[in-house]
Every structure is written in C-alpha cells, then in structure tokens.
C-alpha cells in the first residue's frame, strides 16, 4: 500500500537575500526598482508606527499593525501589473500603498470615515474583516477576467489563520478545478491573534496544502523582498496561463494582532528576538548599501520626506468632513426602499429637533 504520509512532503523555503543582506540567488530587479521596493517598505513601517501611536493617543480607532511583514506585502504587490486586482485583509496597508492607495485613505478607514479605504481606482477590493471570505471573491474576480480574457490576475491576501477556514479550502478547490488566474498569498506571520501556527494546523507548511487541490504551491522567505518579488512574478505568469498558485510567505508579526491585544500574554520575548534578527528592512538596506545604491544621507532624506508625507496624510484625514448617517443609509441599495426613505426622513427630523 502506498500510504501518503505528511513526512514525504518536503518544503524548503525559497530565499534570495539572507539575514545578513547578502544576495544568495539571482534577481531581475533593476537598480531603480530595488530602491523603489526599499522606499515602499520604509514607508509602510513608518505608517505602521504612526498608526499605532495615533491609536494610543485616541486619534484613530483600532488598527492592525503590519510591522515585520513589509517585505511580504511590498515584494508581492510590486510584482503585479496595474490591471491586476488584489483582495486584502485588514493588515495589508503596505500592499495597498504599492497599488497607489494614499496613506490618508487608511487613516480615514481607521477613523471610521464612510469614504475611508475605498480603493476602486487602485483595483483593490474593500478590506475584508471576515477571515478568508475574500479568497472566494478573488476566485470570482479571476473568473470574470478569464471569461473576458483580460489577462489580469487576482490576488487574495490572507494570514495563516485563514487557512483553517472553509472558504479558503473551497476557494483553492474552485481555483484549481476551473483553472482560474488567481494567486493565494498567505502571509504566515506565525500568529492568529494569540494562537500560534502549530496550533492552527498540523501541516508542516501551508504551501503543501496546494498539493491536495492539484495546484502549485511554494514557500518563500517572507522577510526577503527579493525572493517574494521573484516568486510572485513567476506565480503571476503561471496564473495567467490558468494555473493558480498558493504562496506561503514565512514571516512574523512583530506587533500585536491589533491595538487591542497584548502579545506579552501569549508569546515570549526570546522567540520574538530570533525573528527580530530576520528583519526584512534591515537586510534589504544592508544589501543596497553593499551595492553602493544607498547611503546614510539618503536614508535621512527618505525618512524626512516620509515623515512630511504622513503628517500631511494624517492632517488630511483628520480634516475630512464626517459623512452623515443619512448619506450612509442611501448606500444600502442602489435606490433606497420606501422603508429606508422613511427612516432617512426620520433621521433628518431628529437632527432638526436637537
């Protein structure tokens, strides 16, 4: 009998740029692109630090930090084309920035503005709250592109927790059966709120789950922007040919799940320190410096310009006029039902009497 045992599955994460900033593989990234990727990662991290600070100061609402996942997000989004669509969770500000989202949009989203985080022009689906639900939307979107032969791909961004959801498995199955131009990009950041990877699944890797669905899977060092970018490029061409791909980017959520939880309750400082040494930005900067593409002076200039941009973005969000409940109620259906019209009038009446 040919038993299929988990230990016959061998997964080695792909790495191109090691923890010391030394390129161990080959890359097609041009010098100009190398710098762009770096700048996006630094911007994502600074945005993240500011968002956490603003939440602590009560200036924005709950925020889900992405610190540690900059290479996974920027590297993957940077490999896409403009016509592609992405389906993010709530932790994907970095990927969204690369697609053209203004930081002010994300501040507005966190402030609870009606028009916050609406990213249609950037071909980004509204941020998903229900874990894994967007995997199916991405499959449907890819289906539409396949139907219209647009040559675009759709990418669903999920975390390791989402791989326990039924929707994730139904999505992989559909993607493979219908040969959809879709990529599932899992950021395995080791934690689903407080539950570690080994309690989320007994699989050795998430990448291997692709095998069961008859599709291609790959595990990549998610803190290595070069490897993530190259993997995503290849996945994109496979997906375009109707070969969907599951990518597992091994990374680490350095911060809490959201500004509402305290990681010291469920994880050790020692384990975190091991991951800190794999910092995606540190190694990338060392690489650029080794290539004579980056200097301390340029670093300071970059930080100053990002600081200024984010300050302006926050001010823009803070000064945005609040939409009314009446306006919001107008968006339940294309045309409000009679019942809703009545309720909008009731709301207007209550406004007058205040």
């Amino acid at each position, binding site marked *: 009998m040919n038993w299929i045992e988990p230990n016959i599955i061998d997964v080695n994460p792909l790495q191109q740029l090691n923890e010391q900033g030394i390129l161990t593989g080959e890359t097609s990234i041009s010098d100009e692109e190398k710098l762009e990727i770096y700048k996006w990662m630094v911007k994502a991290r600074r945005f993240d630090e500011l968002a956490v600070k603003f939440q602590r100061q009560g200036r924005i609402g709950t925020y889900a930090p992405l610190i540690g996942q900059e290479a996974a997000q920027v590297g993957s989004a940077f490999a896409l084309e403009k016509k592609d*669509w992405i389906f993010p969770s709530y932790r994907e500000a970095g990927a969204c920035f690369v697609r053209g989202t203004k930081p002010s949009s994300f501040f507005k989203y966190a402030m609870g503005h*009606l*028009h916050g985080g*609406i990213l*249609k022009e950037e071909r980004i*689906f*509204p941020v998903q709250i*229900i874990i894994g*639900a967007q*995997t*199916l*939307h*991405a*499959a*449907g*979107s*890819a*289906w*539409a*592109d396949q*139907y*219209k032969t647009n040559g675009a791909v*759709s990418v669903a961004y999920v975390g390791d927790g989402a791989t326990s959801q*039924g*929707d994730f498995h*139904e*999505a992989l*199955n*559909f993607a493979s*059966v*219908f040969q959809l131009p879709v990529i599932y990009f899992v950021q395995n950041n080791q934690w689903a709120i407080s539950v570690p990877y080994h309690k989320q699944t007994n699989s050795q890797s998430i990448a291997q789950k692709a095998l069961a669905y008859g599709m291609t899977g790959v595990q990549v060092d998610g803190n290595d922007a070069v490897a993530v970018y190259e993997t995503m490029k290849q996945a994109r061409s496979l997906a375009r040919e109707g070969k969907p791909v599951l990518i597992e980017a091994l990374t680490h959520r350095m911060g809490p799940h959201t500004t509402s939880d305290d990681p010291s309750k469920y994880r050790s400082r020692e384990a975190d320190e091991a991951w800190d040494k794999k910092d995606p930005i540190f190694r990338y900067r060392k690489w650029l410096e080794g290539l004579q593409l980056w200097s301390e002076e340029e670093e300071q200039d970059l930080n100053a310009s990002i600081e200024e941009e984010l300050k302006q973005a926050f001010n823009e969000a803070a000064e945005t006029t609040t*939409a009314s409940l009446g*306006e*919001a109620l*107008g*968006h*339940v*259906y*294309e045309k409000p*039902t*009679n*019942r809703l019209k009545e309720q909008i009038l009731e709301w207007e009446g209550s406004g007058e009497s205040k």
Partner: protein
Amino acid sequence: MTEMNMIEAINFTLKQEMEKDENVLILGEDIGRNGGVFRATDGLVDTFGERRVVDTPLAESAIIGTAVGMAVRGLKPVAEIQFLGFIYESMDQIAAQAARIRFRSAGNYHAPMVIRAPYSGGVKTPELHSDSLEALFMHSAGIKVIMPSTPSDAKGLLSAAIADPDPVLFLEPMKLYRALRENVEEERFTIEIGEANVVMEGSDITLISWGAAMAETKKAVQMLEENGYSIELIDLRTIVPLDEETIIDSVMKTSRCVVVHEAVKSAGVGAEISAIINEKALFYISAPVLRVTGYDSPYPVATVENEWIPSMDRIVREVKHVWELSLD
C-alpha cells in the same frame, strides 16, 4: 402566450436572459448536464456551453462567494442553491458579503447577482430541504427577496431580478413548480420588485400571503367566499422591499387582516406586517392582526408535515376568529 408551469417559466426566462446578455451566466450544483434537480436549467448547457452553465463542486459558500467576485467585476451570475435549507452554509457570503458590499464601500462596489433556491414543504423531502427562511434575509439589509407563486410572476420577477443592480434572493416554491399551468407572455417583460399583487378585491378581511402558502390560502379564500365573506387577497410577491402601501391601503379598507406564511411564527415576516399595521393603521383596524404559520420547530418529518404547514382549515378558522374578535 404559451401555457407553462413555474419550472418551465423559470427555464424559459433563464434562456431568454442569457440570450439577451452574454454576461449572464449560471452556476450551481448539478445544473449542467443534469439540468438541475428540478430541471430548472434543463437544456441550457446545450445552448450556452459549459462556460456559461457551470456545474460547480459541491460547495455552497464558494458558489455564492465566487458569484460575489464575478458580480463586482462585471458579470451577472445567477447562482443556484439546490435547496433553501442548504443556504446556511453560504450565510456569510450572502448576508455579510453580497448584501453589505454596497453599504460598506459607500456605493463604490456593488454585487448585482441573483441567488435562486427552491423551498417549501408538502412534497415529503428529507430533512433540511423544505425550510422557509425568508425572514433571515429580510433581517439582512442590502439584499432583496422575491417569492413568486405563479408561473407568470416567476417569469416577470426573475427577469427583473437579473436586471437589478442589487443582490436578489429568488425563492421558488417547490410545491408549486408543477402544480399549476397558466398562459405566460413569451415576450420579455418585468414585474417591479416590491410591488404586491392584489389577487382579489374584497371588503371584509385582508388576507396576505406569498409563495408556497398562496396555494392553501387561495383554497381558503374560495371556501370563505362560499361562506359569505368578502376577502381581499394580497400576494406579496416580494418580501424585501415590502409593499407597505398596498398592505395599509387594503387594511384601511377592510379593517381586518390575517397573514399566512409557511415559515415559523416567531420573528417571521408576519410579525413585521403586523407591526407595520400597528404603526400605520392602528385606528383603522377593528381586530388584532392574526397569523397562520408553521409551528416554532425545525421543519418536521414527512409524516407530520401536513399538520405543520398552514392548511386551508387553519386559515379558515383564523379568519373566522378575526371576524369574531372584531369591535364593529
């Protein structure tokens, strides 16, 4: 005009809509070669091919979830859930995804899709095939809910549902799929979603029903008319949006109302109708609004289902009860 039963009318409409717009495609379990377990999609795969008539793997959440993605990206998916009792498996994708996307994106995204599902009892199905779950969706803002009771209404409303810019749940009474035939206009036409049909005018009591329950209600009306009652019969046709105007106008005229539905009583659509009448026509009614409904249990096994479903006798009894309770 051609004589059709409801299943034929639905099949005819799907074909007509797919011919009209190549972005319309249908997906679901066994809808292709098998033509659907009730033959609603019979022959469509021969006409339109597997690209537009998609037999999917057995996964309700994926059927609806992929339809959401397609709809947002410019296709017009008509998804089938084989039996309404199986729709719980896709509840997140309907209530939290399809229904909410317009609202939570401030109108930037919307999912113009149709979900068709057979429901209703009286046909001795196994467990979880017959449940009437319309109230769940009435409670999920952002989706429309249609429940026709005649072949012609099914045709006009299905065309309207496919043209609608919002997600629509289209519930088909299994019991009435082949129960009656009538002349149906072949030319494409639509019936406005949210417009009830006053089936019969009368002055004593308003009877409100929809979908599968219309069959017994009509029988009861006939019996009551023979007993000298003048009944105004309203077929709601659409649960969301609800045609409050027709309900209120009728009740103001008759001053009495009985609602008949197959779903369980508690927090059902009948409770909503009763509340509307209370809010908007209290001083025009002379008796409490009564409901004839299924019992507050899961849908029962076949041997007792006929006692569970609102019967002509129960409807007649409640109408007489309202008459006795009347103040005038």
